[in-house]
């Protein structure tokens, strides 16, 4: 049986791991390669690295980090943040990443998803979607969550699926960094309608949240940052908890 994946996410700025609350207020959380190796040893199923450097210099540092990560760990990892051309996609994969995560560039030019997936294969193209609740619907936001697109999350998710995305990484901006739990309704709405894997993101604060995202939200994988970075709970403890709750995980 395919196991549910636990994916720590590392936001990287100028070579250091940082994690903000509600997309703001950055705090330092250590060397990304060291953290990656620790998570891999603890049983992480995959990793995600998001480059939040705004400078060209920061981007170069990030690609060097990707190479160091690929040499240090033998589990799959995704990189994202500012991926906006086929060159960016190729550079990331050549440096050793398994997948790239595309966000704002897909919104600015949806055919980028088609180009990327036909060039490197759907399995390597993750589309990240940042959403905010608006009454009974969800709206897609762009540019690191600073600008509303007006797009409906469900129709956007369906569009990127049609264009060849291999996976969806859906972040609830309302929940991100709050540790109040994932937006279960958002997850189940998407998961039941889109037939590519769904990674839940935004809001993990305790093991029950992860359990709910999988059992109620029907997520195929869960992404979390702060609960792991600050040692609130270890990956192995989380997996044991899920296993004891009849969720299939890699122990």
């Amino acid at each position: 049986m395919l196991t549910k994946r636990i994916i720590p996410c590392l936001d990287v700025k100028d070579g250091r791991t940082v994690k903000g609350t509600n997309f703001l207020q950055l705090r330092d959380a250590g060397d990304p390669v060291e953290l990656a190796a620790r998570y891999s040893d603890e049983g992480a199923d995959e990793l995600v690295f998001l480059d939040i450097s705004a400078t060209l210099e920061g981007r170069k540092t990030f690609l060097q980090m990707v190479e160091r990560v690929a040499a240090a760990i033998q589990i799959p990892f995704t990189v994202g943040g500012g991926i906006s051309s086929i060159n960016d996609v190729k550079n990331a994969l050549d440096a050793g990443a398994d997948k790239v995560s595309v966000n704002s560039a897909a919104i600015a030019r949806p055919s980028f998803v088609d180009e990327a997936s036909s060039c490197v294969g759907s399995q390597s193209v993750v589309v990240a979607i940042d959403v905010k609740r608006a009454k009974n619907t969800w709206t897609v936001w762009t540019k690191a969550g600073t600008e509303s697109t007006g797009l409906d999350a469900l129709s956007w998710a369906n569009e990127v699926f049609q264009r060849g995305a291999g996976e969806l990484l859906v972040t609830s901006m309302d929940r991100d960094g709050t540790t109040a739990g994932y937006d279960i309704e958002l997850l189940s709405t998407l998961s039941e309608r889109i037939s590519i894997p769904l990674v839940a993101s935004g809001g993990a604060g305790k093991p029950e949240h992860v359990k709910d995202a999988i059992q109620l939200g029907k997520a195929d994988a869960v992404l979390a940052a702060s609960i792991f970075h600050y040692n609130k709970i270890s990956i192995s403890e989380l997996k044991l908890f899920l296993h004891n709750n009849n969720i299939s995980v890699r122990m």
Partner: protein
Amino acid sequence: MVGIIDYGAGNIRSVSNALNRLNVRHFISSDYHELDKADKLIFPGVGEARSAMEALIKSGLTDWLIQIRVPFLGICLGMQLLLERTTERNTECLGLLAGESKRFGNEQTGLKVPHMGWNQVRHDSKMPLFKCIADGENFYFVHSYYVPLTSETIGTTEYGVQFTSALKNENYYGVQFHPEKSGPTGLQLLRNFVELC
């Protein structure tokens, strides 16, 4: 010395990194004169079958690939390409093994495609390739097409259907999962291939 076959479609660096972790001497080449000097060959593959076959034809590797005498390990698409064909864009493959790769069906089952993540491999532990690897151990998969069960199957995995996750035909081995991305278990399998196969 292990040769990694480079035809521009595969996660070459990951395989090389994994062999580095095992301190296995290896080289990467797209030239079969060079690759003929290897005593073991690894044939990685990620991506789409038709472009991969086109790349192999362009590199002049297709005839060479089906007459290899040393132990050979095809990974992911590198295993699927050994068959006669795949339904992925109706592509003719190398034809070394009978049969065709098929796409996971997602309409009737609600199955998500690609099959992505860690899944169990049931195998005959007596095979050297699986030495010191428990039956049912998890490996990392990412693929939309699968090889049905055949007489060459030595490992099986379930995702909507039972499919071939490992096969062997004489000196040719194939695995659907990515040993280079399957943590310590994957490294053990690569070590087995290098030392025992």
